């Protein structure tokens, strides 16, 4: 098997530069690449475009990069939990492209799959379709959407092996599998890095071919955004 392991986030982020386009997995704070985000803050990479469903909260996730004004542009579907984000957006400091969540996922998937463009009904007749080609199929209007082009994808998986094979957990899966292989370099941090051969080939969500670098993450906080519970009995 082809070995993909690197030692840590620092090594995994080798080659990243100001102005690049980054994909980041996660939905809210669930399944985000915490170690890589910390490293992006530490490196103080500037002027990046981030493709990520959400923008974190003020003091966690992508919110950390927003605080330090490292982000030039966000491509997201929902950014409602972040006051600093809203401030930077309304003031014009931050460029924001809001797109439908399914379109976001499919544009990642298309990039992974070498499909340059596809049609979706989402957003037809709304401002997200402005400037885009639209076209009728089966009596219904659709919008043409393109595959994303990104330099790095930062992925959080649950388990991974040294060949880059990945298994995700629960709803921490979300955009992570769709972003693997959707950028020039896919970097994966895992909660548990196991030797090649330890994962059942039938249970692998993402084969290692979509991964360039994988490392054992540390100190996962896994912050809960909305703690909702019920009482027993």
């Amino acid at each position, binding site marked *: 098997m082809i070995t993909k392991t690197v030692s840590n986030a620092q090594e995994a982020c080798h080659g990243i530069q100001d102005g690049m386009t980054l994909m980041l997995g996660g*939905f*809210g*704070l*669930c*399944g985000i690449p915490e170690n890589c985000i910390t490293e992006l803050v530490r490196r103080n990479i500037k002027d990046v475009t981030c493709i990520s*469903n959400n923008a974190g909260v003020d003091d966690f996730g992508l919110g950390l990069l927003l605080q330090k004004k490292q982000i030039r542009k966000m491509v*997201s*579907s*929902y*950014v*409602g*939990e972040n006051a600093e984000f*809203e401030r930077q*957006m*309304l003031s014009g400091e931050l460029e*924001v492209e*809001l*797109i*439908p*969540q*399914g*379109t*976001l*996922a*499919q544009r*990642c*998937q298309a990039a992974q799959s070498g499909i340059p463009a596809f049609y*979706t*009904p*989402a*957003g*037809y*007749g*709304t*401002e*997200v379709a402005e400037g885009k080609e639209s076209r009728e199929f089966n009596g219904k209007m659709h919008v043409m959407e393109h595959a994303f082009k990104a330099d790095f994808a930062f992925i959080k998986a*649950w388990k991974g092996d040294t060949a880059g094979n990945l298994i*995700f*957990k*629960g*709803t*921490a*899966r*979300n*955009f*992570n*599998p*769709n972003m693997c292989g959707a950028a020039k370099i896919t970097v994966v941090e895992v909660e548990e890095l196991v030797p090649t051969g330890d994962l059942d080939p039938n249970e692998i*969500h993402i084969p290692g071919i979509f991964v360039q670098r994988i490392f054992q993450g540390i100190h996962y906080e*896994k*912050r*809960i*955004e*909305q*703690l*909702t*519970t*019920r*009482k*027993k009995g």
Partner: protein
Amino acid sequence: MALDKNQIAQRIAKEVKNGYYVNLGIGIPTLVANFVRNDIEVEFQSENGILGMGPFPYEGEEDPDLINAGKQTITALPGASFFDSAMSFSMIRGQHVDLTILGAMEVAQNGDIANWKIPGKMVKGMGGAMDLVASAENIIVAMMHTNKAGESKLLHQCTLPLTGVQCVKKIVTDLAVLEIKDYQFYLLERAPGVTVEEIKAATEGDLVVEGSIPEMQF
């Protein structure tokens, strides 16, 4: 008496049929799950990647890797499945979800809906709403009949940026159940004690009232 949010959810729950896969939006729609009859088979889909969503976890049993699209901690029922975002929207875009219930800021009498942006003021984003309304064949909007300023949310034409065009078929508000047909709002049911006149007054768009309008049953 106008309904409270729970009562709106309770009325909508009656629209949930046996065998339905249902996607619930944030807010009032989320409450619908609490009122679905338990003698029918229904599964809730949350677009962040779970089918077979269960109730909130017991205190201390919450799992940060298990949330719904509102970022709330949830549980998975036996028979649930997890999947990625592209597959989740395969379910939605591919019309495998039977019923979509979501909130709105405005609905127009041609079925247009606006619920994601107030220019210059609020820009939270559309999340999965644009995919849902563009593809769902069966959409119910759950909302208050008027906004906080007392202005009608059922309009001739939406004033806010649209989420989708000509897609809403049914609306349940605190005052009424309405259907959209032939570019008009048809009044189907009144909230208990609410008069047709009150509903007319609260509806900016064209409202059709045919025959006597029954009160909602719960």
